[in-house]
Structure formats: C-alpha cells, structure tokens
C-alpha cells in the first residue's frame, strides 16, 4: 500500500498545526462559528446530536494493521471504545471533544492518516473497489489512480470552495463494486481497441434528495490526461454549478439541467484550453505511486487447499462462513475473507477497539498486513491463504465477528441515523437490528440468497437506500418516525434507483412489510433467480400489492 514520503508527511503535519491554530482563533473570536464550520468540516469535525463527531479518511478503503491499531487506541483514549465504518469507507468516532481533535490528528499523522476533506464543499475522500488488486475481472488496479487523485485533490487551491461536496470513485474491473455511477465523478478503467488503458468518465451521479445515475461524458480518456480532465470538470462545475439552492448545488443537477452532452461540450472546451502536460503528474511519479500497489510476493499454492477442504468437511459453521464470506482470489490457493460487521443485533459498521486489535493482528499474521474497508461497512482480509482460513475464522468467532452473512439479507447497510446524527429525521440502527433479528435464521438467509437492504435516516441518503434492492428511508410524519420503502435499486454496473412502494410505515411494521416483499420473491422466483433479477422480471406490481396488504390486525 501507499506510504508517505517526506512531502506527504509534512503536508499532513502542517495541516494539523493549521487546524490547532484555527481552533484557537475560533475560541478567541477571530473566526465566527459560520467561518469556522467549513474549516472544521474540512478536517472531518461535525457537530452531531450528543457531541462532536470525527470522520477519518480511509483512502480507497485500504488500511494497514498499524493504522487500525492506532484507530483502536484513539477509540479508547478519546472516544467510547468503538468506531463506525461508513459507506464511504471512512471511520467515524462519535464522542471526541473539539479540544482533543488536534491531538487525535497528530496521532493519525503518526500512522500516515488524516481527516482532510472528509466533509465540506470540496473533493471528498476517493473510494475504489474493495477487491482492488485481487479480483480476477480487473483490468488494472484502481488504487494508483485513486491515490493520484487523493493527492491532486488535497488542498486544491481552486476547488476547496465548491458549490457543494464532490465525490469521486474508481473501479478497475468489469463488475462495479464501488458504486461509481452514484458519484459526482465515476471512473472506470478500461482498454480501448488499440489495447491502451484509459478511463470511462461518468459525471453527475449521486443519491440524496434527487438521486441520479451518472452519465458517461468521455468513453475513453487516455491515462495521461486524467488530472487535466478532472481539472476541467471541476472548473466548469465551480464556475457554473448552482449556488442559489443547497439542494440543487450538486453537479448532478447541473448535468441534468443542461444535459450531459452540453456539460461534456463545456468540459472539452475547458480541457482543450488547459495546459494538460503542465498539470499532469510525470510518468515517473505515476510509476512511483503504482509501485506501492504492485502485486505482493504470492506463494505458489495448489488451487485445491487440502487443509481448507478438510476443515470445511469437519466444521459446518466454518463451511457456511466459507461459502458466504469468501471472495474468489485471482491467485490460486488464496482467498479474500469478508469480516462482517453486521452481527445479528449489532449496529451496522460498528467495531470495538478490542475487535480492531484482533482484526489488525489477523491481518498482520495472515493477510500481508493489509485490510480493506468496504462501502457495505464490512472489512476484508485480502490475501489469506486458504489453509489459514480456518484459524482466522476461529479467531473471529471468539470476538463475535464471524457472522456468515456477506451479501445476504442481514448484511444491512445503515447510516448512524437519529441515534447520533443531527441531520437525521428518524433512527436507522434500530430498524437494521429488528430486521437482522427477524431474518437471523442462517438457513433461511441462505435460501433467500443475495439481497441488499440499505437504510438511511434522512433524505441525504448516507445509507444508500436508493440503490438497495430494498431501500428504507426514515422520515418524520406528524411527529413520528415513518419509513418509506423502495424496491429495485441496484448499486452495480447495472445501477438503478429504487421505486417507492407506497406510503411510509411506522418502525414496528417494517419487518412485516419486508417479510411480505420477500415472500413474493420466494413464491415466484424461477430456479437460480436472485431477488433483484426477480424484481426486474416481475416488475413492481406484485411486490406493491403484497406491501400494501396488511397482514396484521389494525391496532
């Protein structure tokens, strides 16, 4: 993984000193709260319901053991012994004091981490495929591109006061695991007819109040042109994006209003004017970054791992976990193991400091010292030898992290919701917990198969509800929490926005409503058909009918 050189290290240290100074100027009144707020946001500090919240960048979801141990320490020393992984693969602490944040930032800098631009109207933490470098369907590892963009976008003098936040995601594979079409800019690495590698550039995706799927504005951008082209997109947006209404300020609204073709025309005109070679990183720099992501020294192992097969035969729980939570590795004899942070009854994405240390130790011993955070709020051990999987899983069992549900109905994405968030209109976590309990039975989960439920506690859609196969949005209706249910969303290369099934339901009715929807699928699916495939084939009608039919007596 990428390591800081002296320049990266200095910039992050100077940024900490700058923030310390900003806090001091806030306290002495030099900065008003209105002026300070964007500055703290750009260092990841929110004011939540009960306390401040600190959002720490985990660039493209990659962490080392040492970094995770430092997060564990911060959780214990400055928080309440736990943290929360978000859908943008960042870590959030829910209880830090503003007075302690500069110290926390110093501790992060010690392990080459920061909170730069994890919030605010600027270019946010860049995300990528969590199976980067290990997926068989990959054309090129997206992380060198993501790291180049991370550096280019950090403290960009021109683009730190945009109309609104700006999110970039990169995938290097055929199958999109980074939800790139739900980003302001989505980049897909591809090969053209001449065999050259470049990017498909998609612009104007995003969830929130007005969900949009990004449109392709350049089908093939040569690699060397990346930074200049991004600069052109951002400049057009910075100059012409709407600033009159916060809810219409994302680039997706501009793309929608003027059309993708016109947007592309303006970008190309700006791009043609820019001095591309002067903006681009030189090839040696690109190579320097890429070298950090070179394939590790894999051992030559048989594809069939006898120890692994024997353990599966002997231990049914392990066999189930292995059948659900492993991802096929491009190298024979290895697997990527998903550590589910969705234990039945747990808050999705939450992890204690003690668990972090155990996971860090596992990564150090069995996964070349590296971990990945996924947008589904889980952790991946990317380089585990199959014969080590049993030992790994047994350790996970001891700390309650061996839930076999990756991709299943209880692998629920949920934002923190009103239990923590000051923007939320309803709670998310209790809904996730109730659904997990309802569908806890392992056999039944396997029978239902792949089904993504995504829950947001407000219209801002941090829980990605629009692209959940089943989406749940918490709203307020006449002073009560009310949950709107959508169906048919898709977060992959076939991205789609879910459709609303009917009026909102109270919290207590959500599990029954989901149950009725799932029953339609189980009754009408054809052999091997997944939930989302069935929804596409059957259309909304049968699900809508089932959703609207009350199975319980009115109170």
């Amino acid at each position, binding site marked *: 993984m990428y390591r800081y050189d002296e320049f990266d290290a200095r910039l992050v240290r100077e940024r900490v000193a700058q923030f310390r100074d900003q806090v001091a100027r*806030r*306290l*002495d*009144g030099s900065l008003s*709260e209105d002026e300070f707020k964007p500055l703290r946001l750009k260092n990841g500090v929110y*004011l*939540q*319901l*009960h*306390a*401040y919240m600190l959002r720490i960048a985990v660039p493209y979801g990659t962490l080392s053991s040492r970094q995770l141990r430092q997060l564990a320490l911060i959780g214990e020393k400055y928080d*309440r012994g736990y943290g929360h992984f978000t859908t943008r693969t960042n870590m959030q602490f829910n*209880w*830090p*004091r*503003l*007075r302690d944040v500069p110290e926390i930032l110093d501790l992060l800098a010690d392990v080459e981490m920061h909170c730069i631009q994890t919030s605010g109207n600027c270019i946010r933490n860049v995300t990528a495929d969590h199976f980067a470098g290990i997926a068989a369907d990959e054309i090129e590892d997206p992380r060198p591109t993501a790291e180049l963009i991370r550096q280019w976008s950090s403290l960009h003098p021109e683009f730190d006061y945009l109309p609104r936040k700006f999110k970039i995601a990169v995938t290097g594979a055929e199958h999109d695991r980074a939800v790139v079409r739900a980003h302001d800019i989505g980049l897909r690495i591809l090969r053209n007819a001449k065999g050259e590698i470049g990017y498909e550039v998609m612009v104007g995706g995003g969830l929130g109040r007005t969900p949009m799927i990004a449109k392709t504005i350049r089908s093939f951008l040569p690699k060397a042109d990346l930074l200049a082209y991004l600069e052109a997109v951002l400049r057009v947006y910075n100059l012409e994006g709407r600033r009159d209404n916060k809810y219409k300020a994302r680039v997706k609204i501009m793309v929608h209003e003027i059309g993708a073709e016109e947007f592309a025309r303006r970008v190309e005109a700006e791009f043609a004017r820019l001095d591309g070679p002067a903006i681009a990183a030189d090839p040696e720099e690109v190579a320097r970054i890429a070298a950090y992501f070179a394939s590790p020294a894999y051992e030559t192992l048989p594809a069939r791992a006898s120890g692994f097969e024997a353990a599966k035969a002997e231990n049914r729980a392990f066999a189930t976990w292995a059948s659900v939570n492993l991802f096929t590795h491009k190298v024979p004899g290895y697997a990527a193991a998903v550590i589910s942070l969705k234990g039945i009854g747990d*808050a999705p994405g939450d992890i204690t400091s003690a668990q972090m240390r155990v996971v860090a130790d596992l990564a150090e011993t069995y996964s070349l010292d590296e971990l990945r955070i996924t947008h589904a709020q889980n952790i991946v051990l990317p380089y585990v030898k199959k014969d080590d999987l049993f030992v790994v899983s047994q350790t996970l069992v001891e700390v309650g992290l061996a839930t076999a549900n990756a991709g299943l109905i209880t692998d629920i994405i949920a934002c923190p919701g*009103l*239990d*923590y968030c*000051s923007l*939320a209109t309803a*709670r998310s*976590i*209790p809904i996730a*917990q109730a659904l997990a309990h309802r569908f806890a039975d392992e056999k039944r989960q396997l029978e239902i198969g792949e089904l993504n439920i995504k829950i947001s506690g407000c219209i801002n859609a941090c829980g990605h509800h629009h692209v959940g196969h089943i989406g749940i949005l918490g709203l307020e209706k006449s*002073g*009560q*929490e009310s949950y709107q249910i959508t169906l048919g969303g898709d977060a992959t290369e076939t991205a789609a926005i879910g459709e609303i099934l009917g009026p909102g339901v109270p919290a207590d009715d959500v599990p029954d409503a989901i149950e009725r929807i799932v029953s339609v699928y189980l009754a009408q699916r054809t052999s091997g058909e997944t939930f989302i495939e069935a929804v596409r084939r059957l259309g909304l009608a049968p699900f809508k009918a089932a959703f609207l039919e009350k199975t319980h007596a009115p109170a």
Partner: protein
Amino acid sequence: MSTAKRPPLPVILLANDLLDGEVVFWTGTHWSPEPKDARIAHDDASATALEGAAAKALSANVVVDAYLVDITTDANGHGVPNHYREKIKTEGPSVRRDLGKQAGLYNIVRSGT
C-alpha cells in the same frame, strides 16, 4: 436565533458546548449538562430571557447550536422534550443505553458561564 421560530410554551434552552460538544442546558445562571437543571420558561417573557441568554452565550463563544425546545413537565417538574429528536438528544443514543447522559457519562471538561 429568531423569535419567529419559537416553539410552543413551555420551553427550555439547550445547546452544545463549543469546546466539548456536550449537550448543555441553560439553568438561568449557567449551562449544565444535566437536563433536570434546565430552566423552564412558561411564558413569553421567560422565553425571551432564554433567547437573550442564548444570544449572549453564542457571541461569547461558549456554546454553539443554541435553540429552544418545547417540553412537557414530568412528575418531578423536570422538562421532557415533546419531540423524539430532542428526547434522544437529552438522553443519548437509544441503541446504546450504556452511553451518554442516560448512563451518567458526560463529555464535558468545564461548564460554561
């Protein structure tokens, strides 16, 4: 804060401590992290006094996000917010009863003046 947005009486004044983030309540003389210490305004004049206290504390850089919350008094005469959001804000996360004020855990180092 403007009087136009004043919620129905009775009300209390809450805010977050600027340095520590803790939810604090105006007692009439100082800010307390204890919801039961909140001064309850039953009439317009007292509500206006609360708004004055809020404006003063905001400009003195003691608290942030200060606003009035409508409440109902419980058997002990303490104010309990009517809205579920403010209820969660005065108690702590409903999914972690071991955290926040409800668990006697406070995040505050000094209480403001």
